[in-house]
């Protein structure tokens, strides 16, 4: 059998096996629904409550993507600045690390204070969660440009912008796309955190209410939705990465698609 297909089958079997084991263990030990619902039950809940869950899922997706888009724009700008200027690196890097270390839950109330509860703090939280990996990766990509290459460009009297545009940024793309995969999942986390704390919409909010009603299967249904959306977006950016930066992994069979 083609080893590639074989690997895919193995992977699929393992995932299905995980859920089967979960189901079996719940049966075997008679685990209560309030503690850990069975996968079959989660699916049933998901299908039954889909009409009610759907708008919330869309809200979470929308919030995440908007925050993520802002995160990309600001992340690239900051990364380009930090990666190409020594001074900016020295000044901004410690600040950035300090900022990235702050638990984002602590930031949400501030956003709520400034902008009121709802979509805006969720977008902002998703944004600040996704900025850090993008900045670090873009800056690293730029800072590791071969000095000889820069010499060749400078001897041609290339401007700083020429070098950034023709050498720095393309060189950074593999780092950038690798960071996007990480950042999109973080953006989801940010959105859900914010929805949990201060919103009346979104999957985070649904899960919050469901858990206070001890509707544990619904909580898990929410988790499942988040996981599926996360995987889909991750896969999307992986595909995009393989398309755009194929030159960086010449013989990569591990990339998706």
């Amino acid at each position, binding site marked *: 059998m083609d080893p590639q297909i074989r690997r895919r089958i193995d992977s699929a079997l393992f995932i299905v096996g995980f859920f089967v084991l979960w189901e079996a263990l719940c049966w075997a030990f008679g685990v209560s629904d309030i503690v850990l619902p069975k996968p079959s039950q989660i699916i049933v809940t998901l299908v039954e409550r889909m009409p009610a869950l759907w708008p919330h899922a869309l809200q979470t997706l929308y919030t995440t993507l908007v925050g993520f888009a802002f995160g990309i724009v600001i992340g690239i700008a900051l990364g380009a600045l930090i990666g190409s200027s020594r001074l900016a690196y020295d000044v901004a890097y410690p600040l950035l690390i300090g900022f990235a270390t702050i638990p984002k839950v602590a930031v949400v109330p501030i956003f709520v204070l400034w902008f009121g509860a709802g979509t805006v703090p969720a977008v902002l939280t998703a944004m600040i969660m996704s900025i850090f990996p993008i900045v670090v990766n873009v800056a690293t990509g730029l800072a590791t440009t*071969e000095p*000889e*290459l820069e*010499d*060749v*460009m*400078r*001897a*041609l*009297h*290339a401007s700083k912008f*020429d070098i950034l545009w*023709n*050498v720095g940024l*393309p*060189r950074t*793309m593999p780092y950038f796309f690798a960071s996007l995969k990480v950042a999109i999942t973080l953006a989801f986390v940010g959105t859900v955190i914010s929805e949990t704390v201060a919103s009346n919409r979104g999957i985070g909010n649904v899960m919050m209410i469901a858990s206070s009603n001890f509707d544990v299967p619904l909580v898990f249904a929410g988790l499942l939705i988040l996981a599926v959306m996360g995987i889909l977006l991750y896969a999307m950016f992986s595909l995009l990465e393989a398309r755009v*930066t194929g*030159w*960086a992994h*010449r013989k990569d069979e591990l990339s998706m698609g």
Partner: protein
Amino acid sequence: MTSSAAAEHATKHSDFFVELEGVTLNYGRGAKQIKALGLTNLRVPQGDFVALVGPSGCGKSTILKLVTGLLRASSGYVYVAGREVGAEAVRVGMAFQNPTMLPWLTVRDNIMMPLKIVPPFREQYRRKRKSEFHDRAEALLKEVGLANFGDKRPWQLSGGMLQRASLCRALIHEPQLLMLGEPFGALDQFTREELWAIMQELWIKLRPTVLLVTHDLKEAGYLANRICVMRARPGVIIDDAEVPFPRPRTIEMSYTPNFVSMTQRLRELIVTAHPATEAA
């Protein structure tokens, strides 16, 4: 003196295409200061081919960087095309031991990179005269023996092929000044000799002023009109001699007694020239 003559005097400093006048270069400051280049004078007429040889760390590459304006002299003056370096945009091509091709571009696009940067090609590039440049890149690739490799990616090429491509990139914008920093250093003997022949052919055809830094005395003898021998710490030129052999030169020539005795003399000079700091 009339005012126009004064202006002429103020802008025109040197009759040579490249001139180093009393140049020194120090790295670092204070006690940690390293003298990379001692008092150096060098004059290269337009269209000449000069090789710089010497032990490693003797400041050969420093001279390349000074002439391209990548480094500023600590004292003295560097003139290129009669003006102080950097004052006027002289078209410069560079090739190093490391070919530094951009992996995300095809070989042809890599070679065309200088056309995107250097005026006057830059403006034409924007005006979509790409196809003409395309042909030029193709012609140059053919000349170095890479006729069908334009669409390949750099990592699909061998080291020798990459170095050929690197030469193309250094030459595509018709540079007046060509800087070669041990471009053939990492290649095997046969590839190297083949590239010497290609390099000589291109030089005879295009006639840029060339500064070649190398460790290989045979290479210097084969390619250059003049060989400058340098001593290390601080780097100074201790010998500057014409290479008397006619062009086009051949590999066979490098086995003649005259050629061998020339390289032996150069070798002697380099081996016996101890750094000034060690002698003191």
